[in-house]
């Protein structure tokens, strides 16, 4: 009997939670403020949340509707991410930010079934740029393969002739995220005559990379490119400083450009470079955030200096892209209470001009961004930031990726994905307008 009543209580506990249909514009952010990747996650999540709060406080929401960025803690764990997604997807969610390639890979097949667009801004599966195959996934403004081609362009000059005979090491997290650019590097190594060596860092060895850097010392590469995240960034930079690697030849992807990671080594890591599609610094929109959000105590930011840094400003931009997509959908469908299908259209027909960026107080923060039905990434440009001992500053102009090389490769990869996941619905009769 006791067992029975216990079981009934247990059952009712599970099944009786009310599914509150929130009338706001809800966006699900599978964030992490705990775990080994919290160091890099927190400033981005802060930036995202604060811009959302700013829209509500300063502008009264998006088109009059309260913009709700729901954070669900995953700790970068795929299982937790799926749990969060399953729990909250019925709460009228407009988009989901997976924030982990592992979670992203699991959600991509579900996106078309649940009809919730995945916004994996400058991360996730590169092949998702092909809108014909992945109508519900958006990796704009540029994918990892675009970023890889930009790095090669920076190293080898615009015609890539400088790459011949060079030795390039890719130090990457041994995780789908880190392995993403390898196919591009391998394919182009034959074409442009450089030697490519891939050195993985296991999730358990992020803070102790002495073996990897010993290998780098032996190989004596011309350049070390890094695809790191979380504790791996700081570990790699410290180890590089320890082994006296020439920091000028150390270039990271845009997720390896976190100020806090470099401040640990400080002046010694001077010369380290990182790609970025946004320029950190002070902008009118950051001032607004300070006025309306931070000074009112509505922010989770602990260190007020971080709001001018790379990751925080990028988080602000990411929510801006999300908000603009919703606004585009609101304007086109003539309603402020848009649903997920309409926001998907908005994401696919995004056109953020320079004038609009100036309007938003983000002049100079990033380049204009445009997406289309077949191209969900837009192949936009990124520039190279350099650490001068105290902060990151741009040392180049915006460099455009090698679209004519990357796009065919992306299409091939998308085809392969669709074949191995047959039957793949593809666009499934969603029109392209």
């Amino acid at each position, binding site marked *: 009997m006791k067992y029975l009543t216990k*079981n009934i209580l247990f059952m009712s506990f599970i*099944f009786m939670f009310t599914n509150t249909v929130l009338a706001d514009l809800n966006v699900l952010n599978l964030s992490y403020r705990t775990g080994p990747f919290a160091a890099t996650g927190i400033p981005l999540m802060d930036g995202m949340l604060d811009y959302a709060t700013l829209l509500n406080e300063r502008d009264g929401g998006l088109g009059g509707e309260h913009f709700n960025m729901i954070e669900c803690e995953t700790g970068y764990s795929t299982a937790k991410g799926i749990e969060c997604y*399953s729990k909250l997807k019925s709460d009228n969610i407009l988009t989901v930010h997976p924030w982990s390639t592992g979670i992203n*890979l*699991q959600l991509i097949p579900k996106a078309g079934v649940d009809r919730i667009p995945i916004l994996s801004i400058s991360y996730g*599966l590169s092949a998702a740029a092909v809108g014909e195959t992945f109508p519900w996934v958006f990796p704009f403004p540029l994918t990892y393969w675009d970023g890889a081609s930009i790095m090669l362009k920076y190293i080898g000059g615009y015609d890539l002739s400088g790459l011949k005979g060079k030795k390039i090491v890719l130090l990457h997290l041994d995780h789908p995220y880190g392995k993403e650019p390898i196919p591009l590097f391998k394919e182009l190594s034959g074409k442009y005559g450089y030697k490519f060596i891939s050195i993985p860092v296991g999730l358990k060895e992020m803070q102790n990379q002495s073996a990897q850097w010993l290998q780098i010392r032996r190989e004596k590469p011309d350049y070390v490119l890094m695809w790191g995240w979380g504790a791996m960034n700081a570990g790699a930079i410290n180890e590089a400083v320890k082994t006296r690697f020439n920091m000028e030849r150390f270039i990271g992807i845009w997720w390896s450009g976190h100020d806090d990671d470099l401040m640990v080594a400080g002046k010694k890591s001077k010369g380290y470079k990182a790609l970025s599609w946004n320029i950190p610094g002070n902008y009118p929109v950051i001032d607004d955030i300070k006025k309306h959000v931070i000074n009112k105590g509505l922010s989770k930011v602990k260190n007020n200096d971080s709001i001018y840094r790379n990751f925080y400003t990028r988080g602000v931009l990411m929510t801006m892209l999300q908000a603009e997509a919703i606004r585009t959908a609101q304007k086109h469908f003539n309603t402020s209470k848009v649903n997920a299908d309409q926001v998907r259209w908005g994401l696919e027909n995004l056109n953020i001009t320079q004038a609009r960026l100036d309007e938003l107080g983000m002049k100079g923060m990033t380049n204009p961004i445009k997406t289309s039905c077949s191209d969900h990434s837009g192949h936009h440009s990124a520039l190279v930031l350099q650490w001068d001992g105290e902060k990151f500053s741009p040392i180049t102009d915006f460099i455009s990726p090698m679209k004519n090389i990357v796009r065919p490769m992306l299409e091939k990869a998308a085809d392969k994905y669709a074949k191995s996941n047959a039957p793949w619905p593809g666009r499934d009769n969603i029109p392209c307008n």
Partner: protein
Amino acid sequence: MIYREAGQFKISYGADNAFLPVLQDKFLLLIILTLFWIVFPVFASDFAFQAILLPFLIYSLAAIGLNILTGYAGQLSLGTGGFMGVGAYACYKIITLFPEINIVIAILISGIFSSVVGVLFGLPSLKIKGFYLAISTLAAQFFLVWFFEKVAWLYNYNTSGAIEVPTLYISGITVTGPSAESLVKYYVVLSVISLLTILVINIVRGKMGRQWQAIRDNDIAAEIIGIRLMFSKITAFAVSSYVVGIAGALLVFFWKGAAEANLFEIRLSFEILFMVIIGGLGSILGAYLGALFIVVLPVLINVVPHFLGLSIASATVEHVNLIIIGSLIIAILVIEPHGLSRLWLITREKLRLWPFPY
């Protein structure tokens, strides 16, 4: 009171040796089966299937597997995660190489691969025992995860390095893949697990199970009375890895949908070990109770603030969850080191003698 056995008598040896001789136990089992086969599927939401029921069933199968090895045969093993991975990758390769094969058959076959690997890494048990055996199975764990990463053939050279589950059908109904209904997946998993549980219960109540328990209690005495140590230990590893491998295949195909190699890392091994220890070594019920505690309880704790209408930040709930689970583990092991199944048995004994003290 409830367990008054007055009036229940057996008139054949067969009935006397039954699995659940007491009528009230049979009734309880019937209630639990009704709950799992009829009540839950009717009332559960998609979230309940995805976050509570499916992981509970799959992890409890893995815990049963480890319980055979550690609880019944006394061979401490930390390689559970790796063996689950072998089952998962084997199933993936079978499905991709032979697309027309029935998924359930494929899963049952993939257990064989995991069994072979388990036996291979269990061979050191013939010479070493206790913590030293744990180290050698730890080596298996690390080697297997490395192997999954390195051998690209295993994940069909996917760029993401992860295995993705294709959409498969049984007589026209979608059973795996993103478009499969949670209800269908639940029933397939429940059927496989019921079958394996019945199988395992019969094995551990039979000659092999008794040989394993003899080895666990005192292996030198067991050898003296004529039990073949090598054979028993190898079969323990074989059966345990078979069950664990099937759990791994179910984990990827019917719950996760995609898996990367680091899903099967040491953390998973420890999780299963904790389930077995907290649930109770050497008991099938213990495997289920341990899985309930480790898998279901954190999810329920996460849901409590939402249920009560409190708005607490998600990260805080996560932190508090870890504190609660950690302290509960300590409390349970202090109160009853033999686990939750022993707590249940004591409760049952008390009920049998109520109102007299036990």
